[in-house]
């Protein structure tokens, strides 16, 4: 699985309280700490989990972002957007 930077957002929002607060208050600054492609960064800033999922991010980590109310996501919006993604191959590149 690639997209380590995106996945680490979902990891740190659960396990790193300082990062979680920064991600809520100043997402651009929080994301500056991570190695991200321009496409990943833009999708994160937009809360575009449809694209993040298609890029190979692990959905279990993405959902943590919504559960913590970061990047403009809440559970209802997350549900709507991830349903639009459609199934991915069993083994993302």
């Amino acid at each position, binding site marked *: 699985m690639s997209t380590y930077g995106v996945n*680490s957002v979902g990891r740190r929002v*659960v396990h790193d309280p300082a990062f979680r607060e920064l991600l809520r208050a100043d997402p651009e600054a929080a994301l500056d700490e991570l190695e991200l492609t321009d496409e990943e960064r833009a999708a994160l800033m937009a809360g575009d989990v449809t694209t993040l999922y298609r890029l190979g991010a692990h959905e*279990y980590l993405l959902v943590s972002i919504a559960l913590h109310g970061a990047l403009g996501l809440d559970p209802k919006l*997350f549900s709507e957007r991830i*349903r639009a993604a459609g199934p991915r191959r069993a083994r993302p590149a």
Partner: protein
Amino acid sequence: MSDRARVVGGVLVPHTPYFTVKLAAEPESADARCFAAVRGQLEELRPDVIVAFDCDHLNTFFLDNLPTFAVAAVNRFGGPNDHSPGLERRVVPSHRGLGEAIHERGVDAGFDLALVQSLEVDHSIMVPLHFLTPDHEVPLVPVFVNGLVPPLPTAGRAHALGRAVGQIVRAYPEDLRVAVMATGSINLEVGGPRVSEGELWGAPDPAWMDHVVERLRAGEVTRLVEEATAEKLASVGNVAGELLCLLAMLGAIGDARPDFLEPQPYFGHAYGTWLLGEGG
């Protein structure tokens, strides 16, 4: 007295995080009743140790270092380390000697288990313990199986790992009654495209759940192992790989038929007990 440990039975329960709050408010619900039934039967087994096959949810481990199989050899561990409503952090005793034996003898037997000597666990262990051993007095040895991040180990490999763990337990030179726990769902998607409308989860393939229950009731574990291919599990839901923990548990207890098995199709999970008496 026995000079060897014995496997006295197995249990299957889910670990739905919000059940800690939900079932407290709904003590008459089917899930509350099932947890109570499993708890009662587990207590009758009088386990000295529980060996738990568990799929960590990227909380104990992460993508910087992700084992396919791992075992904890520790005196104690803490948890939950993730967001688990209604749960305070607790310390759970473990059995370091048995964990070490599973590591050493497991690797000898060809199962390359990662060794864990310090850990915090997530809701996938702490929710079951909340319902089954709320005083956290029974030592628990976690054996981790990657059921969430493809590629998963094959069903045959997980089942064989369980069988090896069962043999290691039975050869362990201490008079211990060991119960084996599997925790997880059978038909479940969390946070992926197959969630139900407006929800963060869904149960996409009820027919698979029915099929698994039928195989379990018939004791047809070998056929279930053959059917649970990577493609099949991926098609059922992104958490359907937790079936691997159940298959490992069945391997450890010798593929017995369940004494109690109650699916909850709405949630995509099931509760079960396998009681082996004194001679497992």
